[in-house]
C-alpha cells in the first residue's frame, strides 16, 4: 500500500505508516462486522440440536452435522403443495421476468442512447426520477391497477412489472452511451441494416457486461421476493415464501431454518462471484452527470 503504481513508473506518494495501519484496522473491524453474522448462519446450519440450544451459546460448531439439511429436505417433501411447485414458481417468474426486462430495457435504452428523437431527454429524466422513490409508496395504487386487470393472484402481477425496472434501463442506457461507438452504428446503417438489426447484431454484443448486470439485478430481485400482496393461492407462491414458512415453525426448526437461509443465499452469492467483474464494469458508466 505504500506505493501507487502507475502505468509508466512508480510514483512515490507519501503514504504514512500510521494511515496505513489505521485504514487496515478500520477495514478489519468493519469487515468483521459484515462477515461474522454471515459466517454465524453457516455455522448454525451445521450445529446439532444440542449445540443450538446450549448455555452459554457457542459461536463455533464442535460436532458439525448435515442433519439440518436432511431435516429441511424431509420438511420440503411433506409440504401439501409439492415443493417442486414452489421451485417452479420461482424459476418461472425469475426467468420470464428477467428475459422480458433484459429485452425491453435494452431496446429502450438503445433508442434513448443512440437515436436522437424528440422527447428522449424528458423520457429518460422521467425514468431516472423514479429511481428516487421506493416502490412501496405506489403499492396501493398498483394493487388497484392489478385488480382492474384481473391480474391479482396470477403470475403476471409479478412478471409484467418486472419487465420495466428503471434501474435496468438507467444502467443500460448509461453503458451504451459510453461503450457503443456511433461510428460503428453509422456504418452498419449505411450498409443497409435496419435499426432493429443494428441494435441486435452490432450494439448488443458490445454491451455484454451491462446485460449480465441487468440479468443479475433482475434475477436477484425476483429470486429474493417472498410473499407478495398479489399472490394468494398457495400453488403460486414462491420458493422463498415456502422456506420462510418452514423456518417459522419455531424452536425445533432453528437448524433447518439456518440451513434454508444458507441455501437461499448461496444462489445470489455464487452468481455475483461469477459475474463480479462485469457488474463493476457496468457500474463504471453508472454516473449521473446532471
Amino acid at each position, binding site marked *: 500500500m505504500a506505493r*501507487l503504481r*502507475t502505468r*509508466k513508473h512508480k510514483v512515490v*506518494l507519501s503514504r504514512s505508516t500510521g494511515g496505513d495501519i489505521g485504514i487496515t484496522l*478500520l*477495514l478489519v473491524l468493519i*469487515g468483521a462486522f*459484515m*462477515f461474522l*453474522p*454471515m459466517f454465524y*448462519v453457516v455455522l448454525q446450519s451445521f450445529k446439532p440440536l444440542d449445540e*443450538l*440450544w446450549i*448455555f*452459554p*451459546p457457542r459461536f463455533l460448531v464442535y460436532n458439525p452435522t448435515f442433519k439440518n439439511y436432511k431435516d429441511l429436505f424431509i420438511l420440503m417433501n411433506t409440504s401439501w403443495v409439492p415443493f417442486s411447485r414452489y421451485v417452479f414458481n420461482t424459476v418461472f417468474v425469475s426467468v420470464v421476468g428477467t428475459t422480458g426486462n433484459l429485452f*425491453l430495457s435494452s*431496446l*429502450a435504452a438503445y433508442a434513448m442512447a443512440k*437515436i*436522437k*428523437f*424528440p*422527447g*428522449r431527454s424528458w*423520457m429518460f429524466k422521467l425514468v431516472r426520477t*423514479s*429511481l*428516487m*422513490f*421506493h416502490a*412501496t*409508496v*405506489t403499492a*396501493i395504487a*398498483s394493487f*388497484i*391497477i392489478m385488480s382492474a386487470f384481473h391480474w391479482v393472484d396470477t403470475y403476471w402481477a409479478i412478471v*409484467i412489472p418486472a*419487465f*420495466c425496472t428503471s434501474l435496468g434501463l438507467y444502467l443500460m442506457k448509461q453503458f451504451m452511451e459510453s461503450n457503443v461507438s456511433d461510428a460503428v452504428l453509422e456504418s452498419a446503417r449505411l450498409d443497409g441494416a435496419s*435499426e*432493429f438489426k443494428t441494435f441486435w447484431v452490432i450494439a448488443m454484443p458490445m454491451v455484454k457486461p451491462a446485460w449480465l448486470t441487468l440479468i443479475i439485478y433482475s434475477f436477484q430481485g425476483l429470486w429474493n421476493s*417472498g410473499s407478495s400482496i398479489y399472490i394468494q393461492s398457495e400453488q403460486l407462491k414462491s420458493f422463498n415464501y415456502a422456506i*420462510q414458512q418452514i*423456518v417459522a415453525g419455531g424452536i425445533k426448526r*432453528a437448524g433447518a431454518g*439456518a440451513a434454508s*437461509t444458507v441455501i*437461499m*443465499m448461496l444462489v*445470489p452469492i455464487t452468481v*455475483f462471484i461469477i459475474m463480479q467483474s462485469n457488474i*463493476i464494469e457496468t457500474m*463504471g458508466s*453508472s*454516473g*449521473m*452527470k446532471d
Partner: protein
Amino acid sequence: MSEKTATKKAVARKDMTKAQWTWKEMKNNRVAYLMIAPFMFLFTIFTVVPVVLSILISFTDFNLLEVPNIVFIDNYIRLFLDDDIFLIAAKNTFVFAAIVGPTSYFMSLLIAWFINELAPKIRSIVTLIFYAPSISGQVYLIWGTLFSGDSYGWINGQLLEFGIVSTPIQFFEDADWVMPLCIVVALWTSLGTSFLAFIAGLQGIDRSLYEAGAVDGVRNRWQELWYITLPSMKPQLMFGAIMAITQSFGFGSVVTALCGFPSVDYAAHTIMHHLEDYGGMRFEVGYSSAIAVVLFFIMIGSNMLVKKFISKVGQ
C-alpha cells in the same frame, strides 16, 4: 441518426417552425418510438399511473368498497393534526433515514476507497464480503438469533456469562433497543449498488492524474482524495447518493421481520409501516394514499436536495 446529421438538419431547416421541425424529426425517427414503446408503455402503467392515482385517491375517502367521495385535503389535515402515531412515524423515519442514509453512503465510499489499492484478486474477495449481506435475501434474520431475548441468544449468553446482566435483555421488545438495533441491521445490509458504483468509479480514474497531482504538490492520501479522487468520480457520487437515500427509506420489511408489527411502543414505527397499517390492514385507501403521497414527496425532496448539494462538490 447520429449527432452530426441531426445538427446538420437543424441548421438546414431554419425555414421551418420548431413544431414543424419536431414533427419531421419524429416521423424520421419513428423506429425509435417503436423501440421505446413497450418499455414506456409498461413504465407508464406500473410507475407513472400509480403515482398520479395515489395523489388523486388521497383527496377522497375511498375504502375499496363504497363509491369514494371527494374530501379535498381532509386526509392531510387528519394526518398532520389528528394522528399522533403518524407524527411518531414521521420522526422515526427521519431519524432512521438521517442516520442510515449518510452512514451507509460514507461507509460505502470509505471502504471502496480503502480497498482500491489492494491487489485485484484480494479486492474482489473483500468486495464480496462487504457486498454479500445486501444480496442474500432474508439473511438479516440472523440478527434476531444473535440478539434473541432469551439466554440462548449469543449476545445475551455472553452478557450473562460475564455477569454483566442478571436477566437476558429483551432486545426486540425494549423500546430503547429496537431503533438502534434496526439501524445497525439496516447498515449491515446497506452496502449495495452505491458501493459497487464507487468501486467502479475509483477504478475508472485516470492514473496519470495522480502523477500530475504528485508533481503539483499533493502530499498525502487525504489531499489526493479531496483534490483528485472525489472530483473525478462526481457522477458516481451522485448516482450512489440517490441509491443510498432511496434505500434508506425502504427498510420497513427489515424492521417488521425483527421487531414485529407494530413494534413495541411504536419505537421503530416508520411512515412505511403506517402506510401498510392503513392501506394493507384497515383498507382506508384514501387516507393511506395521503400517507404514500407525503412519503413520496419526502423521498423526492431529500434526493433533490442532496443532488443539489453534491453538484457543488469541488466547485
